[in-house]
């Protein structure tokens, strides 16, 4: 849809720029984004295409005149479409050139339109698919609570929403085919018939779930799959991840909820992060209903959907990692520089911390490290497509007299993210069989947690450190708790998770 994009914005020039200015601006950006220098950077290639189109349009006098005219008529429009804002702060503005590579952070904040709260009538309608694990291990309290959750979700939906329910064990079954939520009693009755048996094959459930959500796929809808499972899937993980890539292209988000301690957290993290969904850990069966309801509420509170952050690094710069701090803390997949962010809620920003490595021996002067474009579909707009370009400028200088402290927002986020990384590194060490290293990292984590006053979690880390020394492994419960609670520290709020067991898990069979 390149014709809809404002070529002046893409080139970062004023609307009265001369032909010379246009050409100069294009050359400057094209040099950095050109596919020849970015052979493996999908984001850079896509951005290059956009910028080239913009240049083509503006250097063709008749097309330029036509565009300028639409621009003028648009400006008279008093209605004013909804928008979002995009801010980027960096850990440094002035970079001292070193003889070794160094690290630069960027914190990208995307805020919804301040008027978004006033959108009274729910602009976003759900196209929701529940993919529920009905394997043997779900027997008893688990499956019963999931049914209660599904009932409440149905109650909370309106007739403009679309729902489908798929259950799976070794195979998948459609309990409710994609339909508008009109006859609630009959939908609930169908859910009530679900019972547990068999194994866990997530791909079966997901692929059928995908086929259901696709029946009503629409640009004005929140297209989402919620996967709930309590077990490991074997042999079909790659197929699931492939499916997630396709889902992302179709604009479908997948959120994964792991119940109990015996599920593959790395896999579910990856699955959801590829589609901009969230992954959560539900430690006790008692909080299933709360978790699922809250998640659906968040989905129906969406301001913009299919948010995508494209990070085109300059050829000599590497994007090392991306982490979503808000609305739901989540490690992000950075493949090709295209970062799928999912929904932008009406009342909370999306906040992403990016870590870059920049090269040694940079010449003094001004330069860029990465061009960031955020794209999204604002549900309340007639033309939902909206995007913003940011291209932070840095000064490379050997002047050390200017003292610059990193912004507190970055420091604050990073101090907590560091804890999450510490537990990851402890896990990595353990995977490599380095017991001493794993113990030491867990102890370091505990030290930092005590400093922050998170004594319970710190003690958990210490207990696990001891356990690692004695038994050379972590307890699954402890590992999950440490992982998801350190992640939750980033949310800047009381963890949603209620850690004390509310209900005992009794088997009814």
């Amino acid at each position: 849809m390149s014709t809809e994009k404002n070529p002046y914005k893409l080139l970062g020039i004023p609307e009265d720029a001369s032909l010379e200015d246009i050409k100069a601006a294009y050359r400057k950006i094209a040099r950095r984004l050109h596919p020849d220098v970015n052979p493996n950077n999908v984001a850079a290639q896509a951005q290059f295409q956009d910028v080239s189109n913009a240049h083509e349009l503006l250097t063709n006098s008749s097309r330029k005149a036509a565009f300028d005219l639409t621009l003028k008529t648009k400006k008279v429009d008093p209605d004013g479409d909804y928008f979002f804002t995009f801010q980027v702060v960096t850990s440094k503005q002035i970079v001292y050139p070193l003889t070794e590579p160094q690290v630069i952070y960027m914190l990208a904040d995307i805020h919804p339109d301040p008027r978004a709260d006033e959108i009274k009538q729910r602009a976003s309608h759900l196209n929701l698919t529940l993919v529920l694990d009905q394997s043997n291990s779900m027997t008893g309290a688990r499956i019963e609570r999931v049914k209660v959750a599904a009932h409440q979700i149905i109650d909370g939906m309106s007739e403009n929403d679309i729902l489908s329910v798929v259950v799976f064990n070794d195979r998948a079954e459609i309990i409710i085919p994609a339909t508008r939520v009109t006859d609630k009693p009959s939908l609930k009755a169908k859910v009530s018939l679900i019972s547990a048996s068999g194994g866990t094959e997530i791909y079966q459930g997901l692929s059928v779930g995908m086929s259901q959500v696709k029946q009503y796929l629409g640009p004005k809808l929140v297209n989402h799959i919620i996967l709930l499972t309590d077990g490991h899937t074997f042999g079909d993980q790659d197929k699931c991840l492939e499916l997630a890539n396709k889902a992302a292209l179709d604009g479908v988000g997948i959120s994964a909820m792991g119940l109990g301690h015996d599920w593959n957290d790395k896999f579910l993290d990856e699955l959801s992060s590829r589609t901009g969904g969230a992954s959560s850990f539900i430690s006790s069966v008692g909080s299933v209903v709360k978790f699922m309801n809250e998640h659906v509420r968040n989905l129906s509170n969406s301001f913009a959907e299919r948010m995508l952050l494209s990070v085109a690094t300059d050829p000599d710069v590497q994007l090392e990692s991306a982490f979503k701090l808000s609305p739901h803390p989540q490690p992000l997949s950075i493949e090709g520089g295209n970062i799928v962010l999912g929904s932008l809620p009406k009342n909370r920003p999306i906040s992403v911390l990016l870590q870059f490595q920049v090269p040694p021996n940079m010449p003094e002067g001004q330069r860029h490290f990465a061009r960031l474009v955020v794209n999204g579909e604002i549900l309340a707009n007639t033309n939902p497509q909206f995007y913003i370009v940011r291209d932070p400028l840095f000064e490379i200088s050997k002047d050390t007299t200017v003292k610059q402290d990193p912004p507190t927002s970055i420091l604050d986020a990073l101090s907590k993210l560091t804890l999450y990384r510490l537990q990851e590194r402890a896990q990595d060490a353990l995977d490599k069989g380095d017991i001493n290293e794993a113990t030491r990292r867990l102890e370091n984590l505990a030290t930092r947690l005590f400093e922050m006053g998170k004594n319970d979690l710190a003690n958990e880390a210490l207990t696990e450190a001891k356990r690692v020394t004695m038994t050379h492994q972590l307890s699954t419960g402890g590992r999950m708790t440490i992982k998801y609670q350190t992640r939750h520290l980033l949310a800047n709020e009381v963890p949603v998770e209620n850690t004390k067991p509310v209900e005992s898990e009794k088997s009814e069979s």
Partner: protein
Amino acid sequence: MITCTYCGHINRPGLLFCEECGHTLLEGGIDATVPTKKLETSLGEFSARATWGSASVKKISSIVMRIRDVSEPVVLELKDRIVFGRLEPSSPRQPDVDLTPYGALEKGVSRVHAAIERSDDVLTLIDMGSANGTNLNGQRLTPNQPRVLRDGDEIRFGKLIANLYFQI
């Protein structure tokens, strides 16, 4: 490269927190915020410049060790490795610093107890698998894992307590 003042891990420049232990890597994070501590008892001429908390040993030539309940400080010449322990003629490994005169046997000091090592710009303390362990500022060390030493740190070899001060 930035050396973490807490654990000695070498980090890439631009990182704000140590990747190994999570300690802040901001320049002056320690030296600037922690004021110079007045030592309680006079240590003679070497007490004048002692800065509490500094881990940098660029200009340090020796270490002064004050053992609790012992009036005379022990001055240690700085070298790559100083081993602390209890001298026993039959033992094959001899410590550089013999703690026997300070009640090492009663206080549970091992024959080869711990060592101070110099690496780059910092000193590290390493417990060498002692029977009763080594504590640094109240924290028990994992055997054979180095910890960065700072000016004024309290060390416990078994039950023997000492403070270390860097001397320029």
